[in-house]
């Protein structure tokens, strides 16, 4: 290079000042939060050993004596989870399509559905529980309804996000040959959506299996209530056994679904 001043080559044309302002604003909010909530990270790190110790001292060894007694609750839980996963998958799918910009061009309908799902998702469990019990009483139906309500909010949003991510390229071909909306949906969007769909549905099942709080709130029992009760009676060994059972169920379903997926889809 000769003595000429070397011109700088910027990597993008964005105003770096604005980026800086945004980053600074985020930092300010974070620092405010830490200060306002009086959170000390040192205290947190100091707590880690006792956190781990607590687990090993109290929860181990697991107590498997009453394993047989859990079976009815386990089966119940699975039943609830299966039904509500099925139903919410279908409903959430419709919502997901209505929310995604890729599949719903009507802005008003999109905004309305989005708002509706957002309300579903953001009304806390306890409120749903109370409402459902006041309306439907205690029993299986209420349990299923509670699970569905909770899952739909989450699933619809997740589906919509996944559909949004499906690239327009593939759909363009169908649009270009005059396919109707539903044909683009069924022949273009859905085949591409399948992997994400399986993923989310599995996750929904997982949520439904361990939705102790929801089922408990409406008096529908299930395995989660069993854990809470055992902990309230300080029977940690039994609680950890039941948790292990849940983990087992979830891992097993994932395994089965994955092998099915490999073979079928």
């Amino acid at each position, binding site marked *: 290079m000769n003595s000429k001043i070397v011109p700088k080559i910027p990597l993008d044309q964005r105003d770096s000042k604005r980026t800086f302002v945004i980053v600074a604003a985020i930092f300010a909010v974070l620092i405010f939060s830490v200060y306002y909530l009086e959170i000390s990270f040192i205290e947190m790190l100091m707590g880690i050993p*006792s956190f781990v110790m*607590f687990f090993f001292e109290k929860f181990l060894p697991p107590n498997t004596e009453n394993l047989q007694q859990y079976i009815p609750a386990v089966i119940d839980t699975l039943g609830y989870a299966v039904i509500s996963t099925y139903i919410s998958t279908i409903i959430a799918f419709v919502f997901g399509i209505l929310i995604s910009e890729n599949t719903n061009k009507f802005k008003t309908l999109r905004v309305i559905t989005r708002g509706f799902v957002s309300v579903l998702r953001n009304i806390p469990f306890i409120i749903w529980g*109370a409402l459902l*019990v*006041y309306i*439907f*009483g*205690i*029993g299986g139906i209420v349990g299923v309804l509670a699970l569905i309500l909770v899952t739909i909010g989450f699933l619809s949003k997740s589906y919509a996000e996944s559909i949004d991510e499906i690239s327009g390229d593939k759909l363009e071909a169908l649009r270009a040959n005059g396919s109707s909306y539903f044909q683009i949906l069924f022949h273009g969007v859905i085949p591409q959506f399948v992997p994400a769909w399986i993923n989310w549905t599995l996750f929904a099942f997982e949520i439904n299996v361990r939705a102790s709080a929801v089922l*408990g*709130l*409406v*008096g529908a*029992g299930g395995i989660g*209530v069993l854990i*809470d*009760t055992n*902990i*309230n*009676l*300080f*029977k940690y060994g039994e609680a950890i056994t039941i948790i292990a059972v849940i983990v087992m169920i979830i891992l097993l379903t994932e395994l089965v679904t994955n092998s099915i997926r490999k073979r079928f889809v």
Partner: protein
Amino acid sequence: SADTANKGWPEELTLVQMPNENNPNAASMHTALRDHLSKELGIEVKEFEGGSYAVGIEALASGNLDVMLASPMSYYQANQLAGAELLVTPQVEGYEYYTAFITKKDNKEINNMEDLKGKNFAFVNAASSSGYLYPKGTLVQEFNLDPDSVEQSGYFFENVTFSESHPNSVMGVMMGDFDAAAVAIGQLDSMIEAGTIKEDDFKIIGQTQNIPDASYIVRGDLPEDFKNALKDAFVSFEDEKYFEAVHNDPKARFIATEQDYYDPTIEMLDAINALEEEAK
């Protein structure tokens, strides 16, 4: 301050309120009690709202919590696990806590406790004093039942449900999901007051013995003089607004609790084998 350090007192006190079946207002939103204790003891007082006795008791055991509001059963557990001691009890004149056995007003088949045999019945949950242990104890004593079989279908009840909350039990009865249930009287009163149910929707067909009030319990390993100072501080608290808001009675006060206050309860719990597991 200087003298707290000398006496080996803790530098701050953590107090946890628990939502309580009998007075749901027991809330931490009233800063009056906290301020009073802080002034009397000369140390900082932190007050939290708890949600689970198990969490509170573990916190007592690990020294992260000093004072907690506890029901008889929880006190027993706290005593076993964390060596907690009874401190003070809020005393409200003329108000008694018990659990009522209720059924629907128009249920012709159930008129007294005996009629519960062969019916569908709901407890709250297996860790609840007023929703399970007391009513079960009453049934066991009255009908001479085997405490370990009460929940089994076809033994005394046709079927037993755990509804997981008092309002759930009430609604289940009102809707006919089960024939009868055991519900804390305080909860019934609140629901009537709120208009959720009406006085003449249901009838009370029996009740348990009186359940001692929830009491504040304190970590046992604090210095004796500190515990005494704490007790005095509670007893000298006379803010009528606070008692009105929390206990619905401006004249209510805290009184010091004898260490044997809960003994009858604990005996009863022992009688239904509720304590065998924790006794170890």
